[in-house]
């Protein structure tokens, strides 16, 4: 079953055939990915995505759904394209010169790429948290209030106060910072800064949160807090997280996607991926073997 090469185009296993048949129109083929890349209740739907940096192709024909209130973890070795793929979702790749994205990407069925799409409201709907906490060089309060202000979500001080408090509470930071909201965000510890960035992301009421290795610069305690937070956020948001920590993927996600050299090799229930992966490349990666 798993001896296929990356070029084999007919490897969708029988077990998942049913789901794909039911939910995908017939012109869509999920080439080479084993497992369950698609789902019934998709918030985000990506089909046949190819990404090029100039002449170099970074993503090869990737199709993946991310369900409502689902956490999907993307794992894979450095340079496998998982971050590139994540950044397609809120068009962060637009800022990179020479980067070209092909394929159908939709959010609630509406195209993400298209001449009429304004990226500013898109990025308010699809928030992002980066590897290194990057608070603005402003006060803690301003860091959270900035988004709602520029997006016109709130202008009066009382409304902003409420949004700031709510966001900081949901990010699990309120109790630690409520007495120093006027102090610079950059003065917080790394873990606090990252939670501030999460508060900043949720302040504009996004529907999707993208996280690109959000804990790689944090200690285990701060990491545990963020992971706890991800689980709470799932009630209201759809989350895609790129992580180098396999244990983290196993802990926080419902489905796990394994990328390898720009190909999406396997997507399955996280439980399956970590106990009995279907593809030998996934197995080799998560068990630390030579792939």
């Amino acid at each position, binding site marked *: *079953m*798993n001896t296929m090469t990356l070029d084999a185009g007919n490897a969708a296993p029988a*077990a998942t055939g049913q789901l794909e048949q039911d939910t995908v129109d017939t012109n869509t083929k999920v080439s080479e990915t084993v497992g369950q890349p698609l789902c019934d209740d998709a918030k985000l739907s990506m089909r046949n995505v190819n990404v090029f940096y100039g002449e170099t192709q970074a993503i090869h024909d990737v199709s993946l759904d991310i369900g409502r209130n689902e956490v999907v973890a993307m794992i894979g070795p450095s340079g496998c394209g998982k971050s590139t793929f994540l950044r397609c979702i809120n068009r962060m790749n637009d800022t990179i010169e020479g980067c070209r994205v092909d394929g159908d990407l939709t959010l609630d069925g509406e195209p993400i790429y298209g001449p009429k799409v304004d990226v500013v409201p898109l990025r308010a709907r699809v928030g992002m948290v980066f590897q290194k906490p990057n608070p603005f060089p402003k006060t803690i309060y301003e860091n959270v209030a900035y988004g709602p202000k520029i997006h016109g979500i709130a202008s009066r001080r009382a409304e902003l106060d409420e949004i700031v408090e709510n966001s900081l509470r949901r990010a699990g930071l309120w109790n630690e910072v409520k007495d120093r909201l006027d102090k610079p965000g950059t003065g917080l510890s790394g873990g606090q800064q990252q939670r501030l960035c999460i508060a900043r992301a949720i302040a504009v009421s996004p529907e999707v949160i993208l996280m690109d290795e959000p804990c790689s610069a944090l200690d285990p305690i701060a990491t545990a807090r963020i992971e706890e937070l991800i689980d709470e956020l799932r009630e209201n948001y759809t989350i895609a997280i790129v992580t180098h920590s*396999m*244990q983290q993927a*196993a802990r926080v996600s419902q489905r796990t996607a394994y990328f390898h050299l720009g190909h999406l090799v396997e997507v399955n229930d996280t439980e399956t991926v*970590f*106990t*009995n*992966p279907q593809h*030998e490349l*996934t*197995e*080799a990666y*998560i*068990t*630390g*073997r*030579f792939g």
Partner: protein
Amino acid sequence: MEMHFDQHISRQFNEDLESLKSEMLEMGGMVTRQVAEAVESLANADSELAEKVLRVEKEIDRREMDLDEHATLIIAKRQPAASDLRMVMSVIRIARDLERVGDEAAKIAKMAIALTEEGTAPRGYTEIRHIANAVRKMLNDSLDAFTRFDVKAALDTLAEDEQVDMDYRTALREMITFMMEDPRSISRVMNVLWSLRSLERIGDHAKNICEQVVYLVEGADIRHGHEDNLKKV
């Protein structure tokens, strides 16, 4: 998927898993010998051999504890996943079954001592020999299937348990007949009966080991009659 436990980037991890596996197989070898010697001591009324079985039993208990500790350390240090995780889990479970086989062998040895003290050879030895041969083969084959990651051999061996259970029930009926014919033999025949019971249990443990081979290789948990889980993989 082929099973390789020697291709980790960490050489130390290869060695940890390899030694876990070989420690378990070594324990398996000891336990298999224990069963053979316990049955031998019973058949030949050899109380000296039976005493030896009881001594070695303590060593087997210690090995189970060592294996558990070793497996716990691997989990703590390596957080194994996929086939590595299944390897560690199956070794822990098999070690537990092997320890219990050891317990059953010790029970048989105790019966041997009791029967030797009573003198006269009671009836029922033919049945013991017959079932003992069957379960020893099962135990050997189950460990062999583990060594070779051979699911088919494991399933074949597993199926043999049904015959053992049937033979056990037949022997049980015969023993009851003996006791009814000659009530003076009751205490002796009871000892034989307990030994038969122990052998039947050893068959069950061998079956459990086979189930772990299937889990290790295919990732399917077929315990407690869930063999259909194998089809889902």
